[in-house]
């Protein structure tokens, strides 16, 4: 593999992902759910609109998960498949999906950790299957963007940079 692998998803993938997340939101009463990829990009979010910068949040989530992965290896574990951060009012629960994305649940005292953990488990299974199928179908190696190799695209790129 010459460079980093890339991935893309279509509108129907996005719809299916959002549906699973909305179901989880309803079942658990968490405030919001975010799906973040391992390189720190926001894939989707549902529930209350976040009061913070979602991109910054995503980059920190990916770093948090990666750092904890290394800690897991140091103590002889393959990985920590989920993480829990407890605050006075707000807490967050993070779960790995297919080693490529992270599901983050933000919740307060309207629900409990036990409930979140229980319900997230099913959603993680569903989303893992969905992502694995998606990666199998579209492949993960540098998808070519239609029209990006064209002269027009090159001109547009040149124009962006003046």
């Amino acid at each position: 593999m010459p460079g980093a692998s890339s991935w893309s998803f279509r509108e129907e993938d996005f719809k299916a992902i959002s549906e699973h997340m909305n179901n989880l939101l309803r079942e658990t009463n968490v405030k919001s759910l975010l799906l973040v990829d391992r390189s720190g990009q926001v894939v989707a979010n549902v529930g209350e609109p976040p009061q913070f910068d979602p991109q910054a949040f995503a980059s920190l989530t990916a770093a948090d998960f990666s750092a904890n992965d290394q800690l897991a290896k140091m103590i002889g574990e393959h990985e920590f498949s989920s993480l829990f951060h407890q605050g006075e009012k707000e807490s967050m629960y993070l779960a790995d999906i297919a080693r490529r994305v992270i599901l983050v649940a933000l919740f307060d005292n309207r629900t409990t950790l036990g409930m979140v953990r229980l319900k997230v488990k099913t959603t993680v299974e569903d989303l893992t299957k969905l992502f694995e199928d998606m990666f199998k179908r579209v492949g993960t190696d540098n998808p070519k963007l239609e029209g990006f190799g064209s002269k027009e695209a090159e001109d547009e790129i040149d124009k962006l940079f003046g």
Partner: protein
Amino acid sequence: MSMINYASREINCKLVYYGPGLGGKTTNLEHVFGKVNPNARGKLISLATETERTLFFDFLPVDLGTVRGFKTRFHLYTVPGQVYYNASRKLILKGVDGVVFVADSQLERMEANIESMQNLYDNMAEYGYDLTRIPFVVQFNKRDLPNAAPLKDLQASLNPGWPLAEAEKQVQAPDPSVPGEFLVWQLPTGEWVQRAPVQEAVAVTGEGVFETLKTVSKLVLKSLG
């Protein structure tokens, strides 16, 4: 790892600024943060020690505009330059689409530059990434200092070039930022060589900062086609 979202028509790409400690990586991001229209950028996140040395990374998302109807968003990261922090430095490279190596031009930092460049190659290789095949730009920073090494020496030590095997790329190409130098050229022995584009800079004043960002982002966008 560029992520393409056809639903929202967005392309997200990850750029990493690499290099020795105190070389100016964070300063590059701070300059971009200060100059880009606030509507086109997010917050600058810095995970630093109390003495403002980068501990984990700095992060800045920037929107560069639209290409073929896709909004292009670049996530700029720096790594901690100090040798000690290699474990966290390596994590940041995960999923990288383009790399900027910020070299410190000062003569006495030459060894630190070389060590950091070697470390970059090693860390990339551990992920299975090939630095000679992904967008890569070398920035020679601190060109204003009296003890800055000549550009030629920096090039020879840090960016000597790599063998270019692909016949279709074997076309002599001048280096737009260094008159008289080439990005692709043929040695007297007949072998073809390619080197990374370079940019001279003084990051504290902003000189060369946007030029560097432009060069690497352009390469990344073109690599998507």
